[in-house]
């Protein structure tokens, strides 16, 4: 009687190839945005807390002055989107590490919700900011009257 020695083929598990590899892009985003954020955050801290009168200069008028300049609107917009998505992606990784099952889904949905709300609110403030809404402060009153 013939005996056959069947040697099973080596493990050739086929992986489903997704169209977009989110895990790779997520990783790459963290690296690229991390480098950009180093520049953006230190620039932000330098201008707000160090140059000129330093930290004492910060009040409503200071913020209003900055947001009247399109450069700072774009700057703050970049800072908002890069930093918030960077942070949310980091939180997503931590949730994937430590939460399982239904709890993980709950956390991920809550995180996505919070991120979308904060991005929307932040973008809304940056694009529609008007220093003269309501009762203008003493420093801004002449400026608003002139408008």
């Amino acid at each position, binding site marked *: 009687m013939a005996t056959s020695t069947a040697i099973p083929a*080596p*493990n*050739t*598990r086929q*992986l489903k*190839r997704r169209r977009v*590899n989110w*895990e*790779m892009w*997520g*990783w*790459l985003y963290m690296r690229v945005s991390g480098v950009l954020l180093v520049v953006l955050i230190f620039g932000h801290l330098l201008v707000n807390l160090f140059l000129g009168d330093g930290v004492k200069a910060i009040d409503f008028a200071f913020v209003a002055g900055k947001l009247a300049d399109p450069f700072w609107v774009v700057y703050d917009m970049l800072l908002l989107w890069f930093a918030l998505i960077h942070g949310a992606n980091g939180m997503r*990784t931590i949730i*994937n*590490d*430590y939460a399982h099952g239904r709890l993980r889904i709950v956390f991920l949905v809550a995180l996505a919700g919070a991120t979308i709300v904060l991005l929307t609110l932040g973008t809304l403030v940056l694009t529609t900011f008007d220093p003269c809404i309501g009762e203008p402060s003493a420093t801004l009153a002449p400026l608003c009257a002139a408008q």
Partner: protein
Amino acid sequence: MAVAEAPVQAFTVTLIIRRFDPEVDEEPRWVDYDVQMYPTDRVLDALHQIKWEQDGSLSFRRSCAHGICGSDAMRINGRNRLACKTLIKDLDISQPIYVEAIKGLPLEKDLIVDMEPFFESYRAIQPFLIASDKPYKERIQSVAQRAIFDDTTKCILCAACTSSCPVFWTDGQYFGPAAIVNAHRFIFDSRDEGSQVRLDILNDKEGVWRCRTTFNCSEACPRGIEVTKAIAEVKQAVLRGNPGLPRLDLTVV
């Protein structure tokens, strides 16, 4: 006249070992043992002395006892080490030495864990030469081509790196550093033709992108492999789409 050397003094070392007998214990328990040791003895010698002279029920794996077989990886004073390569004199013996099984793999008994999940991910990266040509003659490789993956050929599959990885502890699906190191060994081998397959496998959700660069693996490796660097090189190769190997250049300088 030759001066007689003073005899080397043996001293008492306390080991606290995390014991677990699945037939008796509900939970693992810490048991302490006193052994007489010389500074040049190893933790493995202490375990032998306990097993042979005090408590024969103590279970642990060891084969070659000289740092090659990779059987006796364990957590010594909170760090993954090979018991056969850890000298008593390198530990602070004024304190007890804590010894427990490596983490992240199912505990079977005392210092023995089930290595199957570890080897499963090792097998998944296809750790063998994939070449289409018939081996009628030698496959030529230059010194420079060999040097690229030299570091990752040193792996002895002891699981010290994988079981020190916090991502592996919490995520049982992650390939783990050892599997990626062994994939690196073939991805960057100029004689191998399967690098694309392995890069695809490691580009998976549970592949190289789960690595958080905590360097626990590099710190744990008893062979001194720069594990985190190897993982980073695989990440770069995935992003590039190929390992980017140099051409064969046999010019003798």
